[in-house]
């Protein structure tokens, strides 16, 4: 059957061009993520810049050696981003491949029926379709891998010396990462094509004799079962979004919508016509014929509509959820910073404030990094050395348990989130290693509220910091009891300057948003590019298929403008259905995450990034309508009504 597959692919080149491009771009992104990850793994900073410690071990856990790179040689940020990019690319690739192959099979129903008629068994047909996928996937994966290899030096030079990877990265040996990317590409293509192949196997020989290309709208029990399972998984993840979620919010904001997207896509042949009918109501009231025609086309071919809607749904839901969640996370961070900071003035930079008249509190905490060792890992953490007597006046250091005033000697106060994560309790001892390589154990004296942006997760006595990092200096000082002008007069001539607390708070919040923006661009940029290709691809294929239908309509007296209007409404309708589902997912995830993050906070500002969200919707809709209209116009211009008689 492989022989036949090869022949069919070379014949139906245009049918498979879409799948080829989609997969090649997918493997390109995967390959790029893989080669860059390889470069980060291959990167070995100067040995002096890392500290090797032994984890504690525990039940069923052997203690192990962990080499912890110090901050200025840390590439783990880039690794995290790359793995997320890889995940999103893989996910969207499955999607696109599944829908393009579903299309390819649906449009060749008669041909497949003919094969069955002259003696192909269902499994032979399945193998033929899988063989076709393999031919396309091999060619596409190899192309993608070569492109990735060519683009790697460029990516690495761009990524070097950034916040994510503050080092110079050199390309590593490409063979293993590219082999992995090609392998993933092939597996993903096969996974995506499986249902199309199964459906091809179910085509009966009698289909060779039928003219009608409309598929039966039934969807199988397996598909329904999996749809419901993914729905259940989605609900489980939603239930996980609780006030204690903390930093888990970003992955949850990404994976939760993915599950619902899968569920809705599986159930799409049921869901899409239903929502389509709803959206079509105003359309039918407004237009005369074209709206009604568009509605029947969307409803009568649920499979086709579902394939067209899937990529729009996927990218709008995932991008929307992440944009909204991160914006809400920044809102919550802003409120936390505002609630935590009590001092009216913040000095940015370091200066000696001891002689300023009137000053009642100078909270000059010193930041440092230390390695925290847990049972299975060791990580570099941000910590701050504080004087608890002063700091509890300038900031909210309310202890949830324990007593912050006992923060002296070898002790530590941890945030509620870290305490929850590693189940630390007051009285526990946490082994740490300072950057001067001295190791010690710190006793937990208090668990305090989370206050990212003001307090790091680990607070230790100021003396301890001075002893282990004698040269470290404060980066900002919280001040009380003096007015701004007096303070700034005193600071003139130094690099430091004082600002009102509100201004500093706003700066911090803006910093969080800035960081989010960078993350979003890195994460969603490739996915968005990819989805755009996918959306255009499925709609182009869908419209080119309908040449005969358009020509027949022309013969029946429809003007080209009428047909274009019908296609316009139809693709608009499909886009609207997908976007409304995507909006529903975005809202659900966004509201829950907001609720989870804002527990215990009051007056949280609400920033909805309208411009970005409407931008996503607008681009999806424009792409959908544009890539349906363009081939229609092309077909209508190229063929006279008389062509229908041929």
């Amino acid at each position, binding site marked *: 059957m492989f*022989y*036949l597959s090869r*022949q*069919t692919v*070379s*014949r*139906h080149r245009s049918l498979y061009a879409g799948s080829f491009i989609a997969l090649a771009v997918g493997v390109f992104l995967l390959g790029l993520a893989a080669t860059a990850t390889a470069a980060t793994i291959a990167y070995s900073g100067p040995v002096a810049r890392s500290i090797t410690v032994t984890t504690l071990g525990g039940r069923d856990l052997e203690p192990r050696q962990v080499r912890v790179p110090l901050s200025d040689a840390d590439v783990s940020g880039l690794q995290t981003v790359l793995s997320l990019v890889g995940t999103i690319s893989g996910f969207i690739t499955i999607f696109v491949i599944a829908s393009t192959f579903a299309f390819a099979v649906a449009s060749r129903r008669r*041909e497949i029926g*003919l*094969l*069955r*008629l*002259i*003696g*192909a*068994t*269902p*499994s*032979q047909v399945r193998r033929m379709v899988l063989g076709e996928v393999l031919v396309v996937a091999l060619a596409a994966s190899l192309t993608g891998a070569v492109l990735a290899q060519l683009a790697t030096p460029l990516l690495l030079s761009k990524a070097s010396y950034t916040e994510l990877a503050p080092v110079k990265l050199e390309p590593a040996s490409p063979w293993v990462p590219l082999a992995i990317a090609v392998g993933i590409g092939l597996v993903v293509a096969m996974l995506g094509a499986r249902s199309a192949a199964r459906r091809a196997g179910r085509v*009966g*020989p*009698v289909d*060779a*004799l039928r003219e009608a290309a409309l598929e039966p709208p039934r969807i199988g029990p397996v598909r329904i079962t999996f749809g419901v399972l993914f729905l259940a998984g989605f609900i489980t993840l939603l239930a996980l979004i609780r006030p204690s979620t903390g930093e888990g919010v970003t992955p949850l904001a990404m994976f939760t919508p993915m599950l619902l997207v899968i569920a809705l896509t599986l159930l799409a042949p049921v869901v899409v016509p239903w929502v389509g009918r709803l959206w079509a109501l105003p359309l039918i009231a407004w237009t005369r014929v074209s709206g009604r025609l568009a509605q029947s086309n969307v409803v009568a071919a649920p499979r086709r509509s579902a394939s067209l809607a899937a990529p729009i749904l996927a990218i709008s839901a995932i991008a929307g959820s992440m944009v909204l969640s991160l914006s809400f996370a920044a809102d919550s961070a802003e409120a936390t910073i505002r609630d935590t900071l009590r001092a009216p003035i913040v000095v940015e930079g370091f200066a000696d404030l001891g002689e300023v008249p009137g000053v009642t509190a100078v909270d000059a905490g010193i930041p440092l990094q230390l390695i925290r060792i847990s049972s299975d890992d060791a990580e570099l953490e941000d910590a701050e050395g504080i004087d608890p007597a002063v700091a509890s006046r300038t900031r909210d250091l309310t202890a949830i348990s324990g007593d912050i005033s006992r923060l002296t000697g070898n002790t530590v106060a941890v945030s509620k989130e870290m305490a929850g994560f590693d189940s630390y309790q007051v009285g526990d001892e946490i082994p740490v290693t300072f950057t001067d390589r001295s190791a010690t154990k710190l006793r937990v004296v208090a668990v305090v509220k989370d206050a990212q942006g003001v307090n790091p997760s680990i607070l230790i006595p100021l003396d301890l910091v001075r002893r282990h990092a004698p040269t470290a200096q404060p980066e900002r000082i919280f001040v009380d009891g003096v007015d701004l002008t007096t303070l700034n007069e005193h600071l003139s001539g130094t690099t430091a300057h004082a600002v009102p607390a509100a201004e500093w708070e706003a700066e911090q919040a803006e910093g969080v948003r800035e960081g989010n923006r960078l993350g979003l661009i890195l994460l969603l940029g490739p996915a968005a590019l990819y989805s755009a290709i996918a959306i255009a691809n499925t709609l182009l294929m869908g419209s080119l298929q309908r040449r005969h239908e358009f020509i027949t309509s022309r013969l029946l007296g429809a003007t080209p403008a009428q047909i274009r209007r019908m296609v316009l409404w139809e693709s608009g309708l499909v886009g609207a259905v997908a976007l409304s589902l995507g909006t529903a997912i975005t809202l659900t995830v966004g509201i829950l995450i907001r609720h989870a993050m804002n527990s215990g906070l009051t007056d949280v500002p609400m920033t909805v990034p309208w411009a970005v969200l409407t931008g996503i919707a607008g681009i999806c809709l424009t792409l959908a309508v544009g890539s349906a209209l363009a081939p229609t116009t092309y077909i209508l211009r190229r063929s006279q009504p008389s062509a229908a008689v041929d």
Partner: protein
Amino acid sequence: MTSTAPTYPTVVPTQPPALLLDGITKTYRSKAGSVDALRGVTYHFAQGSFTAVMGPSGSGKSTLLQCAAGLDQPTTGTVVLGGTTLSGLNEVALTKLRRNEMGFVFQAYNLLPSLTVYDNVALPLRLTGRRPSRGDVHRVLDQVGLQDKAKRRPAELSGGQQQRVAIARALITRPSVFFADEPTGALDSGTSRQILSLLREATERAGQTVVMVTHDPVAAAYAERVLFLSDGLIAGHLDRGTPAQIAAAMSSLER
């Protein structure tokens, strides 16, 4: 039966029939109600016979062909092809029976556009897992007069040539029964004659059985016997009729 269609007593076959239909009914159900396409058809197609099935639109002739070929399941009744009862077979067994024992020729030429003429003809053998011998393929192409077109693709052939490729493809597995549905429906009369002669040759030379659905009296006249179908029942038959006799019988049925 009307006077224009003389009937002959059915000859009791001396050898087992190539195809046996026993009490076939077929009811299509849909939301709008049910339609009886066949209402009890019993007939023996003798080995080596060439039978044309005729009838007005909606008389059930295409359904009959599809049930007989195992493409569709009859609602009740049994189909026995060369000693095998179709109703008990699963999809794979049915497919294997189809590729070994049946050949199909339809109005739409039903060739795979991506394959050359040679590959189209060889395809049924490839599907059985056998390696087609060049000799076999060229022999059947020779038989249909297309030996010089082996490397062409279907789109480069005329309608009649494409139909001959379809016949060659049906011939290559040496099936015992040919099913033809309007095989000349899209062809001019000269080309039609070639196609029908090829089908008749198959019955005369290799003892293959042909069941052909048609609405064209000229085409039906190539058959030894014309079976008339009306409202899902066999309404009569006519042996060795001329086109004029067949047309007259048809118009009396449609009245």
